[in-house]
C-alpha cells in the first residue's frame, strides 16, 4: 500500500486527462485528412510517393546543398531516364502546379510552416490571381 493513495490516484487521473486534452477535446477525431492535389501531367515523381511523403523535406534540403554548394544541379529519374534539374521552382512546381492545393493542404493540417516561400516564388494560382503567396 502507498501512503496518500487517494490523492495520488486523483492527481494521476487529472494529469492524464490534462495531457490528453487535445485528443478528447476533439472527440477522438483527427479531422478531415488532407487531400493534396493530384498530378495530371506526369506519371512519376522523382522518388516513390511513399518516400516523397515521408522525406521530401530531407530531399529538398539535400537538393539545396547539392545545387548551391556543390554545383550539382542535375537529377536523374531512373524510370524514364530523363534528367531533371534539382529545383523546387523549376521541377517540383511544374507538376504540382498549385502551392495552395498541394503544399499547403498537408502543411496546414500538420501545422508546419516551412520557410521555402519566404524567397522562392510559388506558381501563380489559377483561381486567385495576383496572390503569389
Amino acid at each position: 500500500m502507498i501512503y496518500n493513495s487517494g490523492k495520488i490516484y486523483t492527481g494521476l487521473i487529472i494529469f492524464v486527462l490534462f495531457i490528453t486534452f487535445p485528443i478528447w477535446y476533439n472527440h477522438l477525431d483527427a479531422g478531415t485528412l488532407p487531400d493534396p492535389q493530384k498530378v495530371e501531367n506526369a506519371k512519376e515523381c522523382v522518388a516513390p510517393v511513399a518516400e516523397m511523403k515521408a522525406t521530401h523535406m530531407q530531399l529538398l534540403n539535400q537538393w539545396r546543398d547539392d545545387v548551391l554548394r556543390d554545383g550539382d544541379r542535375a537529377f536523374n529519374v531512373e524510370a524514364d531516364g530523363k534528367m531533371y534539374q534539382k529545383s523546387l521552382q523549376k521541377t517540383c512546381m511544374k507538376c504540382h502546379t498549385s502551392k495552395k492545393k498541394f503544399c499547403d493542404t498537408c502543411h496546414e493540417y500538420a501545422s508546419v510552416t516551412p520557410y521555402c516561400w519566404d524567397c522562392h516564388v510559388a506558381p501563380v494560382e489559377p483561381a486567385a490571381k495576383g496572390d503569389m503567396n
Partner: protein
Amino acid sequence: MDKNRRNFLKVAGISTLAGLGAPAIVDRVISGKGEGEVFASGGAAGHHGAEPTEHHGEGNTESHKEEKTGTRYGMVIDTRQFNANPKLGVKCVDACHKMHNVPEFPKGDKNEIKWIWLTNHENAFPEHSQQFKDKDTADNKVLVTCNHCENPPCVRACPTKATFKNKDGIVMMDFHRCIGCRFCMAACPYGARSFNWLEPKTILPTPTNPDYPRRMRGVVEKCNFCADRLALGEKPACVAAAGHSGAMIFGDLNDPNSEIRKVLKENFTIQRKPSLGTNPSVFYIV
C-alpha cells in the same frame, strides 16, 4: 629534497626557456626552412597548413607564375565599348536585375539593392590618378559588380559560411544560411553587397523572373556570376545583354586557351584596388 627560492627560480627559468624555444625549433624542423622564412610566414600562421591552396599576401605576381588547375570564372569589361555606347551599361544592369528579381529603388536610397551598377571612374578606381581626366573618363560611368576575388575577404568574414567560393571560383551567397550580420559587407572593399532592409516580397509583389527566387528581409545579396545560367551553358545575363559588342567577355581565367585569356593577353587591363591583394576576377580595359 631541499627547496629554496634560488633553486626554484633556476628551474622555472629553464622551463620557461624550453617552453618558448621548443615550438620554434619544432616549426623549423617540420617546415625545413631557414630562420627568416619561419618568421615571414608567421603573419599567416592562423591559416598555416589549413588552406594550402590559398595565397597569403604574396601579391599579384605570385598567382600568375604558374597555370592553376580548376576553373576560375572571370570577366573583362571593355570601358571603351561602354563609353561609345552609353545605353549599353544601363541595358546590362536592367538585364541582370530583371533576371534576379532585384527591386528598383531611387538612386542613392539606403535600401538600394545592387548586383551590378554604374559608378564614376574615381569611385571604381580610387587608386588611379584622377587629375586631368580625359573627356571619356570624366563623362562616362564604369560598370562594376562583385569581383569574385581569388582571395575574397567577405568569405573570411562570414561566420556561417553563407558566402563561400565555389568550385568554379565564384563567390556565392547561400541565402538559406545568411544571418544578416553584414560582416561581409564591412569586409568587401568594393561595396558589392547589399542588405535587404525591407521585405522584398512587399517591394516586388510580382517577380520579374518567376523562375528565380526572391530574397527575404535581413539577408545580404550580390552578383553570383549567374551560376545557375552557367550550369545550363548560358552566359551571365549582363554578358548576354552586352551581346556581340565585345564589351563584356566572360570565361575561365585558368584556361590559357580561353577567349578571355586571349583578350587579356592582347589588351592592357586593370583591376579594382589591386593593392589590397584580393585578386579580382573582373578586369577592365580602360
